[in-house]
């Protein structure tokens, strides 16, 4: 058997792989397609069994109805935007230097600290939610986008550190020595030399953190009331409200997940690479 033949396999193996890939595509893409389809179909088409997919039933009415009637959706999107952006920005600003220090600078027990930071992700949200709820209530900061954003740092910060540290560990040592001999201080080195070559992991961790913050439901449920509701809460509400108007329910879902999905698709390579690198070096 030639080496190429070993890699590609004979016709039987290729058929098997083809079948497997097809099944996988159908399995993964099916529900998403159905989500999109439902959102552009009229109610009467959806309540037929099986659903009537003839062309005249396609409509944008679901979207217009949702956008028109649901001020809460608009507010939810704005809130999510604020919370996610705020949380991501702080996570990057604080996490990047921390990741650099844990990867390259002589911090005592750096590996231990890095591991601890990762270990915090083992905490179930409920364990910290209750004390946080009490404190935030006492401070009168319930239903506030910024307090939510700060709470989100509990997982955004470790993500940023995880991804960036993995990357920083792989930079060749020489550049920092060269910068030192060239007269750059530690922060100047970080700013002028290290960060500019870290585009990919920076983007990866930013998108990762943003997506996680946007999609977060549990803390938002507990820590917000009316004002600071984020998109996931609005969706959950719709699921209760629009129980029978399926098209509109899906349309609302599409509107709320679209921004983040687009982000993810745009930066998919960075995300995967960043997370995988963090994993390998961890």
């Amino acid at each position, binding site marked *: 058997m030639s080496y190429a033949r070993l890699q590609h396999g004979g016709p039987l193996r290729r058929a098997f792989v083809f079948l497997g890939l097809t099944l996988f595509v159908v399995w993964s893409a099916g529900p998403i397609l159905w989500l999109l389809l439902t959102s552009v179909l009229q109610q009467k088409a959806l309540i037929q069994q099986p659903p009537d997919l003839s062309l005249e039933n396609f409509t944008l009415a679901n979207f217009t109805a949702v956008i028109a009637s649901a001020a809460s959706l608009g507010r939810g999107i704005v809130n999510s935007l604020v919370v996610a952006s705020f949380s991501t920005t702080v996570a990057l600003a604080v996490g990047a230097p921390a990741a650099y220090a844990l990867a390259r600078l002589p911090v005592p027990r750096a590996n231990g600290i890095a591991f601890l930071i990762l270990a915090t992700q083992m905490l179930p949200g409920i364990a910290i939610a209750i004390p946080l709820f009490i404190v935030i209530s006492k401070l009168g900061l319930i239903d506030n986008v910024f307090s939510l954003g700060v709470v989100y740092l509990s997982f955004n910060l470790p993500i940023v550190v995880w991804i960036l540290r993995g990357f920083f560990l792989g930079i060749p040592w*020489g550049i920092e*020595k*060269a910068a030192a*001999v060239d*007269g750059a201080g530690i922060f100047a080195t970080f700013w002028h030399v290290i960060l500019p070559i870290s585009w990919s992991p920076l983007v990866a961790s930013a998108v990762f953190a943003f997506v996680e913050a946007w999609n977060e439901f549990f803390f938002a449920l507990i820590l917000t009331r009316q004002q600071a509701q984020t998109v996931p809460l609005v969706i959950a509400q719709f699921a209760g409200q629009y129980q029978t108007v399926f098209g509109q329910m899906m349309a609302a879902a599409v509107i709320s997940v679209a921004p983040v999905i687009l982000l993810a698709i745009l930066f998919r390579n960075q995300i995967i690479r960043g997370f995988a690198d963090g994993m390998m070096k961890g």
Partner: protein
Amino acid sequence: MNAIELKSISKTFGDYTACRDVSLAIPVGEFVTLLGASGCGKTTTLNMIAGLEDATTGDILMNGARVNDLSPVQRDVAMVFQNYALYPHMSVARNIGFTLKMRGMGKDEIRSRVEKVAASLELSTMLDRLPAQLSGGQQQRVAIGRALVREPRTFLFDEPFSNLDASLRMKMRAEVKELHQRLGVTSIFVTHDQEEAMSISDRIAVMHQGRIEQVGTPEQIYNRPATRYVATFIGNPRIELSSAVVVSEQGKTYCTVGSTRLALPSPLESGRKIEVGLRPEHVRLTDEAGIGAVVRLVQPVGPTTHVTLEWEGGTLVSSIPGFVRLARGASTRFKIDPERLLVFDQATGKLLQ
């Protein structure tokens, strides 16, 4: 006043000692090489001179002043690294000019200085390129340019050519030597390649296990190696040593290797245990009377042929000009030049002459 002086510096990391009691005086304009195998402490010493690592004990002086507490910039040193360590996201011009930018120099002055240095290194057409777009030799020249533009008092080189292929390495060595002859800047070079050290240095400091074994000119190191280690480290092919015992007879001293008797270049007390060896070019094969040996390996390299022999004292290599017709397993005889015999004390490894 010496350009650089190291006074008993040492470096320890926890219980590991990288350098101990290293002392060296380097006059202005000298090209000194720190030579040794990996882990001998040469890079650590260089880092201490540069200011990248702190000396645990000892003093580092530059032009008479103690510089232990000064940063690399304040010591006015520039460094060329293994793997060049160029900033990958910066163009050649910005790579070279970075240090000037850190110093706060104005844009115009930076540009003119960079262009001048680039011209001297034949990099003028590459100023806007990124390091990834350059060849290995060009990258190395950018690294040198980055050091040159500082016009420093000292140049430091950290195994800059280890990653280049053979022909490029020879070329870069010549360029560095020419540069030194042209500019006359005090230079400290680190390498594990003894041929490299021999060819470009004014003096060589051979290091082993954190200590300096010997400092001297290439000739001194080669012809009068202070220790067994230096003798075996320098010279290609490697010198082979054999154990021997000093024997005194009728007023003359010899040494015996098994049943073979060899004349000693200078007298020693009888009964002393020694090790003796000869550089391959001083071992001559002969058809006349001589010491018996069997040919084990024949390696022609062009101008010479290295013949590995097995004799009573162990292994010995003989370098013969040109090509030789000798078969493996053939018996032959060799003669030695007693004046060239290197004699070392077996216990201390030090040269006895």
